[in-house]
C-alpha cells in the first residue's frame, strides 16, 4: 500500500510538492525524507506545499511543516502552504505556525 504519496513539480525556481495522503506519524517520515531530498537536489527559492488532497492531518503534520521551513531556511528558501481545508486551518491556528519568518499560509 502506498501510504506516503507525494508528487513533485518544478516551475523555474519554485518546487511544488502535492501531498496525496493522510499526514500522521506513520506517513510523516516518508514525506519528510522525500521533500528534503527534493529540496537538496532542486535548491528552489520557494517550496510550495499543496495540501489540496490531504484528507487528514494531526500534529505530525505540524512538525513536518516546521521542519521543512527550517530546512528551507538553511537553503535560503521560503515555504508557502496552499490548499488547506477548514480542519487543517484549525490545526494550524493552534500551532502559531504563522509566526515562522520564511513561511506563508495562503487562505483559500
Amino acid at each position, binding site marked *: 500500500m502506498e501510504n506516503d504519496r507525494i508528487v513533485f513539480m518544478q516551475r523555474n525556481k519554485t518546487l511544488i510538492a502535492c501531498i496525496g495522503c493522510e499526514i500522521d506519524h506513520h506517513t510523516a517520515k516518508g514525506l519528510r525524507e522525500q521533500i528534503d531530498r527534493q529540496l537538496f537536489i532542486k535548491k528552489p527559492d520557494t517550496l510550495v506545499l499543496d495540501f489540496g488532497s490531504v484528507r487528514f492531518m*494531526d500534529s505530525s503534520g505540524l512538525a513536518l511543516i516546521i521542519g521543512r521551513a527550517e530546512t528551507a531556511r538553511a537553503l535560503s528558501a521560503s515555504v508557502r502552504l496552499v490548499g488547506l481545508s477548514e*480542519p487543517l486551518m484549525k*490545526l494550524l491556528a493552534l*500551532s502559531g505556525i504563522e509566526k515562522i519568518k520564511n513561511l506563508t499560509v495562503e487562505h483559500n
Partner: protein
Amino acid sequence: MKRIINEMKLRLPAVSINESVARSCISSFMAELDPTVEELCDMRCAVSEAVTNVIVHAYKNHPEGTPAFIYISARLYNEREITVEVSDNGCGIEDIERARAPMFTTGEPGERCGMGFLVMESFTDSLTVKSRVGKGTTVLMRKILGKGEGAPRDDGKRS
C-alpha cells in the same frame, strides 16, 4: 437521565499503521451521534494524537518480544456525548504537567513538535491524564456534540 447507548473496546498492537485504524474506528463508532464534519475531524485528530503518543513514547524502551498494545475504550451516551479512553502498559509519564505543556517533547527533534496534548485538549471538551511510571498511562477524552446548534437531542438518535 444519562445512559450509555453504545460501547466499543479495541486492542491494537502499538505500531504506526494502527494510527489510521484507530481513528477510522472512532469515525464509524461516533457516526450514530450524527456529528458535524468539524466534530468528526476534531475527534479523529484527538484520537490520532493519543494513539501516536502510545506508539512514540509509551513503548519506546519496551523489551522486544513482550506485547505492546494500545487499548481503546469508547462510549456513546444518549446526551450526544462520546468518551474515548486510550491506555497502555508502557513506561508512564513522570511529570504530566510538563508533558502537557505546548511545545514540550521528548521525541525526535524535527519529527515531533510537542503539540499532541494541546490538540487533544483543544479538540475535545475535557481531557484527563493518569499515569504511573513503569505501569502505563490512561488518557480520557470527552466530547459533547451539537454545541451551538440549538438544543441537544435527548434520545441520542438521528432526527
